[in-house]
């Protein structure tokens, strides 16, 4: 039956191209893509426009807004703060999640089930609510972090926990950690050496994906940054919020910069994912 359908298309190229044009799927996909892309394209246009008032198209094009943005010390400082906090949170979560995932995988399989429930907790509570709890938690005791930007690092750790744990647990499942450790030890490596030389390199793909995705997520995080620290430690999103009264062209340039940055990171992460998948498939 399928053959009968496709046969005429093979015979006449015009029929094939026609059926491609009227393919309902491509219309749906194209429509959704347009709806999603339109605001972004408009923002890009606004960021590149000299003036865009009552006319349908901008009066002229310029890179001035971008140049102004990239030379604003306040923006660069906010960018640096966002990077710093994201890197810190990721380093903390790697240091904590990696050993836990390894132990859950090799020694205590029951822990894995607990972790799978646990990692959903940060999403069960809305950030506005949990930030109150976090403020209370870090108000005193050994970790009195309220009022300092450091509070963002343990907070962001809880946000990226699901990404990190799942990605690492999945890549652990893909390699037979126990027998790799066994083999390395019988060849004269101690357990620590065996882990760093033989297990960790084989988790690299999964860890990289987790890091890239979490990173782009954290750079765009606003609610916690605003609620917990706010203007005392201006991250990118907080800066964007504070600049909402300034020129629309300027904030558009900011949004586009942020978007491109995230896009590149996500693309890097996905490329790594595809690479890992093709490697596993071979």
């Amino acid at each position: 039956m399928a053959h009968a359908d496709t046969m005429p298309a093979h015979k006449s190229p015009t029929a094939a191209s026609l059926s491609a044009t009227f393919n309902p799927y491509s219309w749906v996909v194209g429509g959704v893509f347009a709806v999603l892309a339109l605001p972004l394209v408009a923002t890009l246009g606004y960021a590149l426009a000299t003036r865009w008032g009552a006319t349908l198209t901008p009066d002229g094009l310029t890179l001035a807004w971008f140049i102004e943005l990239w030379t604003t010390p306040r923006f660069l400082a906010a960018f640096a703060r966002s990077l710093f906090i994201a890197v810190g949170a990721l380093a903390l979560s790697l240091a904590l999640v990696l050993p836990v995932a390894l132990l859950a995988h090799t020694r205590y399989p029951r822990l894995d089930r607990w972790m799978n429930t646990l990692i959903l907790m940060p999403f069960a509570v809305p950030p506005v609510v949990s930030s109150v709890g976090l403020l209370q938690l870090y108000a005193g005791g050994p970790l009195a972090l309220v009022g300092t930007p450091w509070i963002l690092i343990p907070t962001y750790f809880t946000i990226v926990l699901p990404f990190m744990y799942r990605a690492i647990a999945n890549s652990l499942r893909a390699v037979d950690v126990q027998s790799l450790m066994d083999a390395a030890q019988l060849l004269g490596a101690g357990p620590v050496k065996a882990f760093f030389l033989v297990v960790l390199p084989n988790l690299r793909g999964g860890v990289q994906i987790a890091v890239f995705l979490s990173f782009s997520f954290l750079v765009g995080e606003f609610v916690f940054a605003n609620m917990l620290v706010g203007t005392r430690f201006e991250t990118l999103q907080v800066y964007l919020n504070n600049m909402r009264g300034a020129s629309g062209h300027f904030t558009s340039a900011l949004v586009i910069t942020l978007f491109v940055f995230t896009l590149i990171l996500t693309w890097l992460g996905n490329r790594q994912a595809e690479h890992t998948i093709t490697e596993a498939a071979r």
Partner: protein
Amino acid sequence: MMAATTRPPSSATTPKASQAAYRQQPAIASGATAASASRHTDHASSGNAISLKGLAKRFGDTDVFANIDADIAHGEFITLLGPSGCGKSTLLRAIAGLTSLNAGQILVGDTDITHLPPQRRGVGMVFQHYALFPNMKVADNVAFGLRMQKVPSDERARRVDEVLRLVEMQDQAHKFPHQLSGGQCQRVALARSLVVEPRVLLMDEPLSALDARIRKHLRDQIREIQTSLGLTTLFVTHDQEEAMLMSDRVFLMHQGRILQQDSAEAIYTRPRDENAAGFMGHYCLLDAVEAAPLLGYRSKAGRVALRPEALYLSVAGMPLGGEHPERVGPGVHGVVRRHRLLGNIVRYDIDCAGVSLTVDTLNRSARTLLPQGQQVTVHVDLDEVQELDT
């Protein structure tokens, strides 16, 4: 095929010399203990390569294995044979130090390695699923052990090359494990454990994941390499044929015990008890009463084990499949229930007065195949009857 010229010069023919060469290496890991331990064995190379004394392992309330006692000579190829779940793999892992023991002592030479971590035991191991390091090329996989011993890079390269030649993988040195076939992976794994010149090589069902043709080839190759290096080897398998073909001695294991330690021939033809007979070959196990008509006398042993190839058929007084042996028991009448063609062997199921017997005959010609329902007489070779105590 694997001539002496292709062998690493450092691993000489006699076990003694090979061990001496092994000892010249800066020794395993950071092992001051291992180095001094090795020096110990220098004086005792006349003794056993490995002694297992009263090994026991419990998991919760169940004994995985218990009372394992065995002495293995230098250069011996020992097979641990048994059904899955008999504790043979766990025993091997315990010798490697990958699993702790509840009791007993393991001596390599006269060094007690019972409490040494795996990396200081000087024991090599090959796994069923190869356990090659996926992030490293073949050459780096093989070099790993030498790197851990801090062998200088030029010597390392030489030894890696030699051992890869030994397993005929020198052309694949720059490939990654995922680019290799199963058989190739297992050769690399073998090379990787040979290159560090272990005192004992452990192999945990190394051929089970491979297809039949490659399995046969690699089986012969492993035995050849093992013999030429004089390497003491413990080989775990559930495959009777593998055990018979490769081993100097077979340790037959059942429910965590070694039932019998013997040459392959003795294990096959003279099983010590019912369990051993049950696992080896296709023994018919009869009790004394059932066996009496076949034997012509009432056995004093509780059980009688008969091998299918030690039973003979005749049809209407004509012996089937050539001359019968001299000392046969009195014939017993039976009926062919069915036959199975195994290629060179025809296996008959014969009903003999309520007892089912399995009889193997050589498949000499299609003309001699007996149809279902055929009346036959069954004789037994009295020299091949195994009377088992129960």
